[in-house]
């Protein structure tokens, strides 16, 4: 089992196997409280909330609120935290979590300054914290745990890993996969920012050794070169599971940011052509439309039988 599964699911001998505790930072905010409720409704074991100055109160009459992650982690033993604070306050909140020994930190906010993300990544490296995001829908093991903002409807338990830069495309493509009978073993939103705590290549390393993994879907978009580097890693690692990619933004004009801070083509850096050609080199078909993803995946599975 890989580390991320140890954190999200645990091992059968753990007392909290399949019931890992999650801390919600910003639980009293509009967005944080809404999604804390949705996560709980999904079955995620939200054990604590954090809002500085509101320690001692309770969320929904049951979840204790603490002033810091340190206090929350000490009281609950939780190793997972999710942040819903505005971008301006993000770095302090994230440092609090990393300092408190959180192992998996999911960073939801959009518009976090690049320097703040860089600083956080440096700190996380030293402490051994996995950062997912910023600007991510989060991470989930369908039907077990949701640490994020994704709606439950598109996802089904299964054996395909889905890695995505985009949130709504993750939903859209997972939905298409689920309807075609391809459930998901894990979905990881790496985020739409220029700098990701977990890059596509890191996310791939987290999932590539899942024993019963049956396939991989990569949802990329224009900007940067993380898809190219992932394709090279797939070639180098000799990963043989059926893999399909989708790249959004083929028709976008150059030098324009298309919604995501990271979705920008500068010269040829970040172009869809470059990504598609690297995936082709890795023998990974690239779907033209989201709906084509399960079709191509089924085709790949047919070949490997």
């Amino acid at each position, binding site marked *: 089992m890989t580390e991320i599964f140890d954190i999200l699911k645990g091992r059968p001998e753990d007392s909290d196997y399949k019931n890992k505790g999650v801390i919600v930072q910003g639980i009293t905010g509009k967005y944080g409280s809404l999604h804390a409720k949705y996560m709980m409704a999904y079955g995620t074991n939200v054990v604590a909330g954090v809002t500085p100055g509101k320690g001692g109160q309770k969320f929904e009459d049951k979840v204790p609120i603490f002033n810091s992650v340190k206090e929350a982690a000490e009281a609950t033993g939780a190793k997972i935290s999710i942040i819903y604070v505005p971008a301006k306050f993000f770095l302090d909140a994230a440092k609090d979590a990393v300092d408190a020994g959180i192992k998996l930190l999911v960073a939801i906010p959009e518009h976090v300054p690049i320097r703040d993300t860089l600083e956080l990544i440096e700190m996380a490296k030293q402490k051994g914290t996995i950062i997912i995001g910023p600007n991510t829908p989060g991470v989930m093991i369908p039907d077990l745990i949701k640490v994020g903002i994704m709606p439950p409807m598109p996802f089904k338990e299964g054996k395909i890993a889905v890695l995505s830069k*985009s949130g709504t495309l993750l939903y859209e493509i997972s939905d298409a996969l689920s309807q075609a009978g391809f459930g998901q073993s894990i979905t990881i939103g790496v985020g739409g920012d220029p700098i990701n705590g977990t890059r596509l290549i890191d996310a791939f390393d987290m999932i590539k050794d899942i024993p019963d993994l049956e396939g991989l879907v990569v949802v990329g978009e224009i900007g940067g*070169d993380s898809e190219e580097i992932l394709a090279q890693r797939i070639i180098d690692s000799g990963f043989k599971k059926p893999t399909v990619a989708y790249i*959004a933004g083929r028709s976008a004009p150059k030098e324009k940011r298309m919604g995501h801070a*990271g979705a920008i083509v500068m010269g040829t850096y970040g172009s869809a052509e470059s990504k598609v050609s690297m995936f082709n080199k890795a023998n990974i078909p690239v779907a033209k439309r989201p709906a084509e993803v399960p079709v191509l995946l089924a085709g790949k599975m047919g070949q490997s039988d």
Partner: protein
Amino acid sequence: MRLLEFQAKELFREYGINLLPSKSSTTIEEGRIHAKELGYPFVIKIQVPVGGRGKAGGIQKCQNDDEFELKYPQVMGLTIKGEKARAILLEKMADIKKELYLSIFLNRSKRCYTIIASSDGGVEIESVKNQIIKEIGMGDISDDIAKEVAKEMGLDGKSADDLVDTLKKLSKLTIEKEAELIEINPLAIMQDGSLMALDGKFVTDDSSNFRHPEMEKYQEKSEIEERAEKSGFSLVELDGNIAVVGNGAGLVMSTLDMLSDNGGKPACFLDVGGGATTESVYEALTLISKMKRVKGILVNLYGGIVKTTVVAEAFLKAYADGVIDLPVFSRLKGTAAKKAKEMLKDSRINIYDSVEEAINAAVMGVKN
């Protein structure tokens, strides 16, 4: 945001990077005064936020008054890659010995800043040969690294000293202004060995804008863009006739791609954000109504948590209020989609089950 050359040079000047005398103007009257102050010969340079200006005729040498009267309006009237001139920069012409390339650039996959330097400058970065690449973490450049770069570029004497100096100043700018990219191409070696920044490309991290009120004057935003930002939307205006609206950047990009594949021409990219509400969709339609070129609206919403009935309400309200008078081709997926369809049954809003159907209908719809 991406600064124009003259704006980048304003910052270069403030940080003490060597520059030739130059003046920016927006009218020929202003330009004439600058021409007198600078004296011939100088170069007339169009100020647009895209590259490839030289090839498009946006950079012209100018030797005398007659040439000035001819070329200034010519350059001012150019449109390069869809971008009209924001200003004209007149810059003194200089006798240069050699052109170098120098940039500090955020390497996204390595997650650090990188120096890229070359002794063969003056061409686009993709064709720059013998690139010297150094990783510099969060942007700090030590004397040792700077000297190493100068040495690897084959510089000595005054040129080497100037390169070290320029790199240190670029590093300071990168950190203090939170840049994603600062590029000097070409960085010229003058006859006396000193270095001079002949061009400047400067891209900052938009997410850090709140920490940089001093950069606000460089923000260029149309009224529509400003309203979009206020509502938390992302908007990119394009030159087609079908407005594309959706929730989530990836989904809207994907819709643009499919629309283009099917022969449609997008008029804009409009991402209303993950959580669409009646108000936000209504405001999106209001913004679109201000774009004269739009003949139809393609809406692709993946409502997960968002109730599609909320979106349907916005459509009905926009028609009822006379905000829009355009056909809408929509795919609404998500909770309560059935009820939303019921609500829109007798309206001018066409609802489709798949985005493919909605796109085909939109492409056909704007032809008539």
